[in-house]
């Protein structure tokens, strides 16, 4: 469980991109002489991932999350740095490495569009050298877990997005990969389908001890599955650590609404030296540091006659949104 299965050291990736100025002049110039520029998409990043970990990659669109996943699974070559996944250099695409990993992209599909998913499953089983009997067993087991046993014989084009995504997952997991790279796997799914997929991934991780690297813009995917997150901003890692610590760091205080029984108590509470966010007659909103909530509330309850109180958490989406906007975490 403690062994590092993914090691990344000073990894960088740059792309050469043609640029064109607007207008006719720009078009003619572009026709005769293409101007290209080198864009550093990933800049000197380093991290390690342990076997069985579920890691969430957070960042705005274009931050470089997907490029990192593509390099980790061997789809694209890194421009510089060291990279090792399960002891292999991913970009060499050795058969034993490829049999160990899978990549699921929410917006891409590998299932054959006009055939029922079962045909793609058997094809994948053959590609990964799984015999028919074993393939049948795995398809049965995974289809039960994903609750798509009834949809196996319906052409892919007739399936709903949620059913198709489950079928994609089954196709991608039939060879029992040890490392899963998931790029926005819940993209476009409804709330129930998202929840089912998250549950499935959690069970799969527990049962197989598979390592999961996940990118998602749905914060529930991250908070439900990941203990550790890596924040990426313009190709650099701005945070690598526990999700809880990150949330505490970004949102160190809580708002507490206190409803006093009398105006006298409300006045005394207002003048007690605590940080008042706002006051509306007997309703006072205090801002209290997370690590001082218990002691402060005990004191308030002992000193004042309180009718009711509410503790409100800053929504995770808002906190994470900060990461997407701000460079520093």
């Amino acid at each position, binding site marked *: 469980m403690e062994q590092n299965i993914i090691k990344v050291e000073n990894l960088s990736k740059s792309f050469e991109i043609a640029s064109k100025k607007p207008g006719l002049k720009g078009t003619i110039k572009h026709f005769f002489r293409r101007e290209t520029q080198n864009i550093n998409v990933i800049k000197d990043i380093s991290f390690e991932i342990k076997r069985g970990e579920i890691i969430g990659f957070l960042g705005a669109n274009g931050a470089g999350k997907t490029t990192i996943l593509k390099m980790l699974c061997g*789809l*694209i*070559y890194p421009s510089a740095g060291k990279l090792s996944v399960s002891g292999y250099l991913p970009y060499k*695409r050795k058969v034993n490495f490829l049999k160990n990993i899978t990549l699921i992209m929410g917006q891409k599909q590998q299932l054959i569009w006009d055939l029922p998913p079962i045909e793609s499953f058997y094809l994948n089983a*053959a590609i990964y050298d799984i015999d028919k009997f074993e393939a049948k067993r795995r398809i049965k087991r995974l289809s039960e877990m994903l609750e798509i046993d009834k949809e196996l014989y319906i052409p892919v084009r007739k399936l709903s997005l949620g059913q198709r995504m489950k079928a994609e997952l089954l196709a*991608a997991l039939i060879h029992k990969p040890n490392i899963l790279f998931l790029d926005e796997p819940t993209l476009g799914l409804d709330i129930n389908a998202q929840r089912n997929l998250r549950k499935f991934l959690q069970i799969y991780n527990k049962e197989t001890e598979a390592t999961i690297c996940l990118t998602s813009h749905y914060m529930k995917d991250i908070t439900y599955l990941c203990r550790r997150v890596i924040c990426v901003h313009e190709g650099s890692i701005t945070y690598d650590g526990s999700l809880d610590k990150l949330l505490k760091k970004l949102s160190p205080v809580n708002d507490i609404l206190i409803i006093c029984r009398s105006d006298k108590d409300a006045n005394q509470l207002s003048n007690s030296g605590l940080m008042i966010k706002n006051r509306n007659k007997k309703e006072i909103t205090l801002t209290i540091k997370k690590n001082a909530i218990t002691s402060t509330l005990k004191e308030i309850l002992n000193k004042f006659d309180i009718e009711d109180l509410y503790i409100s958490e800053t929504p995770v989406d808002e906190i994470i949104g900060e990461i997407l906007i701000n460079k520093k975490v």
Partner: protein
Amino acid sequence: MSNLNINKLTTLLKVQYSNMLEYRVEIALWAISGIIPFFMLNIWTNNNLNESINLSNIMLSRYFLSAFFVRQFSVVWVVFTFEEDALLGRISPYLIQPLNPFFRYFAQHIAEQFTRFPFAIIIALIFFLFNPESLWIPSLGIFLLSCISTFLSFLIQFLIQSIIACLCFWTEKASSIERLLFIPTLFLSGLLAPVISFPEKVKSWIYITPFPYLIDFPANLLSGNKTNMISGFLMQLIWISILFPVFKRIWNLGTKKYTAMGS
């Protein structure tokens, strides 16, 4: 690179055949659209052009029917499919599977040929109905050799197009390069005229290119026309042995350039 075995190959063929059957009407139309050789036969016989090459009407009609068959079972379109898949990022999942994606395309082509087979037979029967004098049954040996040479012709075309398809890793429109090959393929392969009809000087050059071994050689073999079997097969094998390493090299270089656009 390959990691191909019988189980993978048969499963690929079975699945792709099921897939192709979904497009049977489209494939029937493709088969019908391949009747250029019959138009050419008409032009040749109506203008008595066959006299200039000492080929009887019957032998010429057999040649063009054979050309039709060879064409049906050697049509290649991998460059267009690959280009679309590469540009839309659809090859990404296939690139991280332990099987070169070109085997999928290869299986698609073979499956498509199986699907074409009944339609090609029907077209041939209609041809014989109108030209009963052209009916002939080749010996089993000649038939098998023709099948092998047709398959080798398919392999040559598949490799040429695969090499061009790999240029997608550098240029986004590799299919336009393929179009450059359309004219020499049309004129020098024997689809419009048997290569024997070209002037001697030109012929000696044509025979060192891969083109006459795509249609002319297998069609002459099947129709029973005079052809040098040994040099024909030898040239087919030489071209395959030249093209295959080129494909492997360009594939290895290209995948390093792959940026997984659109995914």
